[in-house]
């Protein structure tokens, strides 16, 4: 099997030196524990001030199947997927493909103990005598195989011009300063580094040179950021069921709760429950939301399907809840360890019958943090289940980010009446303010007037069971009004409108990085494309304005059916004719050249490109 991310076979630019601008792939087998070496390499480059990003391409399996770790260093700061010029080949199972995938002019760092690597005289090869380098390592047995990953760390860093001090610092950071661990690993790195320095002679153009582009930045995964954001949103109840790629979000959330939300006497201000399945997880979250806690769950595609019925209850009984969907490739069980954006259409109207739900669409780890706390505010203000759709690429991979900003406003708990605030004529679903949102009361309130009976069945505005047509319609019309109020609560899109650009691109989530890079390239070629990055549904006026201002709008999304495009066409029928779809899903994050290729026909249509130029 071949590394799916190493697709380009075009010769790579080798004239002159390639300073801090290239991609590396490390090919190992799952379960061999190469992650430590990979993340250390990533961090070492980051420490040198060079913009860098890592993507882990792993199988849905625990041990033995091939896995590839991609690191892109880019002085210009590009982080989208890019076919690697440097390959570290440590996995016998994929040796052939890994070598074959290299562009001519590329670099191969080969575990010399592996046999049968294909000859590539158009590739610069460095052979690493792993066994030899491991010889006098103190560790024994299986642990030795594990530590063997440190050899390529040493060689690669040396070749790229990363000092041993940087590597050591990175290793310390990676091990959170745990001495024993550093001491077990570093000697091997050092040995390999010095061996490389003394024996290998650099023949390739790729180097890292110190910059200051990462000053003040952090390295973090989206799931970690989301967990942390939730904690700062006051998450107090978490129920979930394990599923890739959302599991690490809950793991992070829980460890941050332990760290930040446990009293001196050890009492937690939170409860995390591993439910028996996703139906139970969302049920628990709704029960907790009804009782007044800030409750959240995280899942992925299959879990969203199982949450359909309860989401409809939450919508109709009007109970706050936050649901994170770290999207993987669907339909069905699909590709659990690949990334996609295929749940947006389904989540937006989840549940039988009428109903729409607010959907946050974070596009960066910063937004994973921010929406982590904002989602609770919207859920409690609107008294409804709120979805946050991120994806595996954003959630599980390691990204550079600004230090997260502390919430700039107090927690918005929404309309909750307590004790004497509860009027004599209190009706749970009475729209006293005309915004479609009626004040609620919480169980446990001493005021006898506070009581109401939550239900998924038809009811009047006092929550009393009713089959009367006028009660049904009044109530659901109010829910529609409420949804309009919600428009004002969602984050505005990020718009980069280019003066008299004919084409506007609309995107969401993590695809923005490839799009930014593609737009920059197009701009160099004189083709200017505006961009609107949607950060939430329902849409507001800004989207209508953006589409109106452009001759043609192209909605780029990582699914097959063009789900977001369909939503926009349905909600903006008068503009639908101008709204075009670019929808592609194969499980891989987008690369800039894919975006360029997909936009080309549209540039041709608007006359900005002549057909011939399209390759």
């Amino acid at each position: 099997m071949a590394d799916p991310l190493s697709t380009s076979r075009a010769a790579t630019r080798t004239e002159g030196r390639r300073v801090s601008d290239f991609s590396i792939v490390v090919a190992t087998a799952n379960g061999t524990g190469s992650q430590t070496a990979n993340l250390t390499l990533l961090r070492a480059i980051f420490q040198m001030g060079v913009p860098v990003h890592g993507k882990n391409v792993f199988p849905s399996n625990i041990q033995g199947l091939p896995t590839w770790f991609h690191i892109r260093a880019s002085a210009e700061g590009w982080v989208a997927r890019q076919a690697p010029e440097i390959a570290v080949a440590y996995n016998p199972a994929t040796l052939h493909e890994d070598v074959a995938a290299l562009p001519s002019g590329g670099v191969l760092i080969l575990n010399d103990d592996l046999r049968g690597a294909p000859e590539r005289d158009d590739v610069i090869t460095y052979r690493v005598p792993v066994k030899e380098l491991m010889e006098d390592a103190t560790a024994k047995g299986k642990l030795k195989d594990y530590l063997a990953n440190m050899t390529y760390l040493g060689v690669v860093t040396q070749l790229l011009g990363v000092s041993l001090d940087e590597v050591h610092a990175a290793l310390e950071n990676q091990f959170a300063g745990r001495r024993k661990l550093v001491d077990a690993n570093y000697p091997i790195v050092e040995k390999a580094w010095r061996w490389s320095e003394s024996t290998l002679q650099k023949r390739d153009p790729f180097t890292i040179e110190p910059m200051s582009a990462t000053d003040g930045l952090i390295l973090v995964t989206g799931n970690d950021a989301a967990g942390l954001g939730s904690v700062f949103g006051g998450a107090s109840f978490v129920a979930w069921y394990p599923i890739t790629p959302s599991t690490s979000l809950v793991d992070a959330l829980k460890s941050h709760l332990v760290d930040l939300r446990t009293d001196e006497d050890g009492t937690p201000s939170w409860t995390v429950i591993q439910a028996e399945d996703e139906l139970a997880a969302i049920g628990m979250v709704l029960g907790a939301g009804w009782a007044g806690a800030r409750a959240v769950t995280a899942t992925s595609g299959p879990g969203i399907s199982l949450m359909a019925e309860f989401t409809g209850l939450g919508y109709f009984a009007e109970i706050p809840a936050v649901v994170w969907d770290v999207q993987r490739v669907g339909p069905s069980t699909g590709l659990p360890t690949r990334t996609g954006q295929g749940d947006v259409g389904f989540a937006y109207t989840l549940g039988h019958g009428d109903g729409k739900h607010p959907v946050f669409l974070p596009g960066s780890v910063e937004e994973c943090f921010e929406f982590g706390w904002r989602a609770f505010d919207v859920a409690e203000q609107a008294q409804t289940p709120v979805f946050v759709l991120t994806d595996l690429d954003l959630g599980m991979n390691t990204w550079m980010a600004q230090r997260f900003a502390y919430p700039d406003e107090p927690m918005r708990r929404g309309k909750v009446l307590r004790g004497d605030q509860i009027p004599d004529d209190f009706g749970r679903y009475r729209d006293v303010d005309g915004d479609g949102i009626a004040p609620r009361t919480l169980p446990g309130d001493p005021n006898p007037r506070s009581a109401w009976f939550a239900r998924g069945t038809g009811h009047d505005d006092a929550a009393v069971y009713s089959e009367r047509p006028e009660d049904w319609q009044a109530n659901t019309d109010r829910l529609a009004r409420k949804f309009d109020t919600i428009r004002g609560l969602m984050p505005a899109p990020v718009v980069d409108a280019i003066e008299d650009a004919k084409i506007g691109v609309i995107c969401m989530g993590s695809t923005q990085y490839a799009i930014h890079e593609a737009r920059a390239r197009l701009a160099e070629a004189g083709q200017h494309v505006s961009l609107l990055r949607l950060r939430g549904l329902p849409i507001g006026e800004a989207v209508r304005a953006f589409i109106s201002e452009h001759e043609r709008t192209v909605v780029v999304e990582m699914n097959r059916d063009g789900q977001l495009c369909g939503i926009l066409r349905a909600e903006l029928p008068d503009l639908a004719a101008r709204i075009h779809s670019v929808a592609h899903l194969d499980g891989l994050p987008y690369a800039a050249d894919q975006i360029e290729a997909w936009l080309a026909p549209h540039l041709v249509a608007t006359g900005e490109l002549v057909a011939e130029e399209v390759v």
Partner: protein
Amino acid sequence: MTVPAARQPNVVGLTKADYGGRPSTLCKGCGHNAVANQIVQVAFELGLRPNEIVKLSGIGCSSKSPAYFLGMSHGFNALHGRMPSIATGALSANHKLRALGVSGDGDTGSIGLGQFKHLLRRNVRMVYLVENNGVYGLTKGQFSPTAEDGLKLKYAGTNPFPPVEICAEALVSGCGFVARGFAGDAKQLRELLKAALSHRGTAVIDIISPCVAFNNEDDSQKSYAYGRSNEVPLEDIGWVPPQDDIVIDDHEPGETRVIELHDGSRMALTKVEAGYDPSDRGVALTRLQQAEARGEILTGLLYFDDQRPSLSEAVGLGQTPLAEMSDERLRPSREALERVLDRY
């Protein structure tokens, strides 16, 4: 404890009427009504504070009944079979609350069996009532999973499957309070309810609660299933004549009493003897099996053990319920955030 007279206020100054709910829309003679009445009586006698109680249910005739008692208590009529997850979340958010859950045999034994069993594992502190009539009442008389093997019903035909034994299920799931009552035995039911309300974790009471509309044995002469097929058009299962409650008020411990249901079919209820020791799970299982073998239904408190911590105890919650924590306590400080970020 002295029982206050209905019209007199009780220890918390409430009259029995204050514990009532909306008028019942269930069939006249339905066992579920009798249970609702006993809940009102018990809440009144114990002097429960309505605001310290939440009523929970799933979907079904039985699950409707929380609307008919404790009108001053908050309640949540959840989804079919999903009361347990709502309860788990609600009681986690506010572990000071006491939950009174009403479910049916279909709601708990069929669609809800998984959630029921996992609720018991977690030992969420609540009273879990299964109003057991062997049929799906609200959807008009299909077999529920608690229907006896071989039972013939006019609408549903013959049941080829062994019943789900609610009490046995509770026992193997580690439940610390397992009891069975009968809607018509008010005295026993009140005793069980009172004991259940003071239990540390989940207290399950399987309540035999006959359905007057659909639990009609085919071949029983008195059944109006019989009546229907002979005098009344069968299609017309729309005809549900009102019935009187079935009541037994002098059932002694250790005694077996045969009761006659509205359709004339009979049911043998055996009350555990006075000296029965409910502390052994194995014994409870065996007794259930023996009764079943004799075609009897064992009632009373079958198993009790309050050693296991409830969920909120297991997760170590303190005094303040999660739902009542101040924003300050819920959102860590600026400094705390900076400290975390420094690690990245």
